[in-house]
């Protein structure tokens, strides 16, 4: 292995391999007694990616695509039936130690802050749970809490120690949540819709804070979002998920301006545009993970199948019947689409003809 390859490998902080999560189907009492079984939901079905040091990766998709479930598995809040997670190249065994280094920032600051705890107690809680009484250089708890608050932009930190969450504004509460994550000096932060509940004018400040943590402290960040505009603002790479799979992943510039997968295009079409709303918008409801279609799981909603483009390219039968994984179609830019494969000149010849 060449030297540069080795460096590239050590650069990967977190690796997710072939993750699978199935939620058991539930039925009502009567149907249950009659022996009926609910259909299982395959929320995450073979998700894998790497996260590099100091990188911001956006996991994007609509409700039910499995993005939040993936985040919860990474956090160890959910046990996957399949797959593994590697932290700095080693499989995660000691969850407690791992959790110190990978911290989550939840989307609803009001819901994730205990209203009866002071800001000091909230931030110090993580330290106490992990049995940390002193910092690496023997600093007392108070100093660690103050440092975390200050890094999260709450300055001077002492001013906030004795306040309660309801005394803070929305933006400040989100900062406290971030401080609670920072106090353990994590390498990775997983942020689930970190700004979707905030007012637009306040959002930028929180995003700027996340950018700063990445630049100054080389913290890697996974941002879970439905908003590709947000991905454009902050992410280095974007992974688009659909029905439990990553259907496209690559550098943000490529994925968001030259998408390969029709679903990514569909998601881009719902980002509001000043030109007005007269553009094709995908019809139908968010997909149902209890009923995953055969073939490419996007085919029942795919505009390329509906318009006949897929048939013209001779791949429609494959779209309907042949499941496919991610293929690297441009450098570092992967997509799972039969049509994109053909367009990229990267596919086997059409099946049906000759």
């Amino acid at each position, binding site marked *: 292995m060449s030297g540069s390859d080795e460096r590239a490998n050590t650069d990967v902080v977190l690796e997710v391999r072939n993750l699978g999560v199935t939620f058991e189907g539930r039925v009502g009492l009567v149907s249950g007694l009659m022996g009926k079984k609910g259909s299982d939901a395959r929320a995450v079905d073979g998700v894998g990616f790497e996260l590099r040091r100091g990188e911001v990766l956006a996991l994007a998709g*609509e409700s039910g695509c499995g993005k939040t479930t993936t985040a919860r598995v990474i956090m160890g809040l959910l046990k996957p039936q399949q797959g593994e997670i590697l932290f700095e190249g080693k499989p995660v065994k000691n969850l407690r130690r791992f959790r110190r280094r990978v911290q989550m920032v939840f989307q609803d600051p009001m819901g994730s802050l205990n209203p009866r705890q002071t800001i000091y107690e909230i931030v110090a809680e993580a330290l106490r749970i992990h049995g940390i009484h002193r910092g690496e250089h023997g600093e007392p708890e108070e100093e660690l809490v103050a440092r975390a608050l200050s890094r999260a932009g709450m300055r001077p930190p002492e001013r906030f120690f004795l306040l309660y969450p309801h005394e803070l504004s929305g933006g*400040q509460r989100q900062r406290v949540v971030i401080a609670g994550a920072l106090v353990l000096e994590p390498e990775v932060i997983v942020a689930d819709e970190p700004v979707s509940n905030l007012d637009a004018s306040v*959002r*930028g400040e929180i995003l700027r804070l996340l950018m700063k943590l990445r630049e100054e402290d080389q913290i890697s960040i996974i941002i879970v979002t439905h908003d590709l505009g947000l991905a*454009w603002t902050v992410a280095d790479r974007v992974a688009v998920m659909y029905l439990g799979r990553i259907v496209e992943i690559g550098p943000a510039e490529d994925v968001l301006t030259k998408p390969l997968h029709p679903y990514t295009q569909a998601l881009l079409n719902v*980002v509001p545009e000043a030109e007005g*709303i007269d553009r094709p918008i995908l019809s139908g409801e968010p997909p149902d993970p209890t009923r995953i279609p055969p073939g490419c799981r996007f085919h029942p909603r795919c505009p390329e199948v509906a318009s006949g483009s897929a048939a013209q390219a001779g791949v429609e039968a494959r779209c309907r019947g042949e499941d496919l994984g991610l293929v690297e179609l441009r450098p570092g830019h992967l997509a799972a689409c039969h049509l994109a494969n053909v367009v990229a000149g990267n596919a086997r010849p059409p099946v049906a003809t000759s």
Partner: protein
Amino acid sequence: MSLLSVRDLNVTYRTQGGPVPAVRGVSFDIEKGEVLGLAGESGCGKSTVVNAILRLVPRGTDVNGGILLNGEDVLGMKPGRLRAVRWTQASVVFQGAMHALNPVQRIGDQIAEAIVIHGRAGEREALVRVGGLLEQVGLPPRSLEHYPHELSGGQKQRVMIAMALACSPDLVIADEPTTALDVMVQAQVLQLLKALQRELGLAMLFITHDLSVLVEVSDRLAIMYAGKIVEEGDSRAVFDAPKHPYSQALAAAFPTIGDDRFRHKPSGLGGDPPDPQAIPSGCPFHPRCPLVFDACPTIVPELYQAGAGRRAACLLVEGALVDAPGTAE
């Protein structure tokens, strides 16, 4: 005559913690067939404006100013007249309104009820009309027979839109109509509202915190801050080249994908929207304003003319300080 004319509207809630001035002198007009987008963040008073127009504010709330709907004074209407006007002249689609559907009544009957109550048709005729309405909002006619729990969130919001259209109003007020919906469904509902608006020549007052959504559907935009309109004008012009520093910050919060100016550069304001009970002196935006100067804390800016068909309440608008009282220069 404008379809809706709001003049110097002031709304003050009475609370145990003292009076809360939520709306402080708001004026605007909506012409027939026109869509006005009202933008602003939580607590800016935009929903209070809606509630005041339909007189849905809590009893004891002070509402002053003029609200003329088709030339008729809404604030002076007797309760019976008010009930007649709601739904037939102006109707509302609320945020999360789908939760307002009666869970034990069929969809068709719920919509028909509104038509019958307002004397628009008899029961049988009403049900026929409901079938047409459901088709118009993109639901299969058999949805008539369904109960609310059998529908998805997006479908329920479509039912609410059908209901808002049931008595053929001239004005539909949409207060965060898509906020609780999933991204794809949100775009579908927006597209539907815009199509219906065009087809039926409806006037709309569209309210949301999401400026980028408003630009898509509105002809004109008004941006509110701390209970006042701080900028108004043609929607594209306001979004592309906002004059007020607050509008500039709001517009910058909605990035254009592919535009390098937004790439890795999140922009936002420090601070938070003000507490309506402690509104800063002078220009209420001055503590957060990146362009603040010495006159801002003392002079309350009015809406100054800022180009053709545009007004902005900022002392930096050309000529503003000449008009402003108390500045002898």
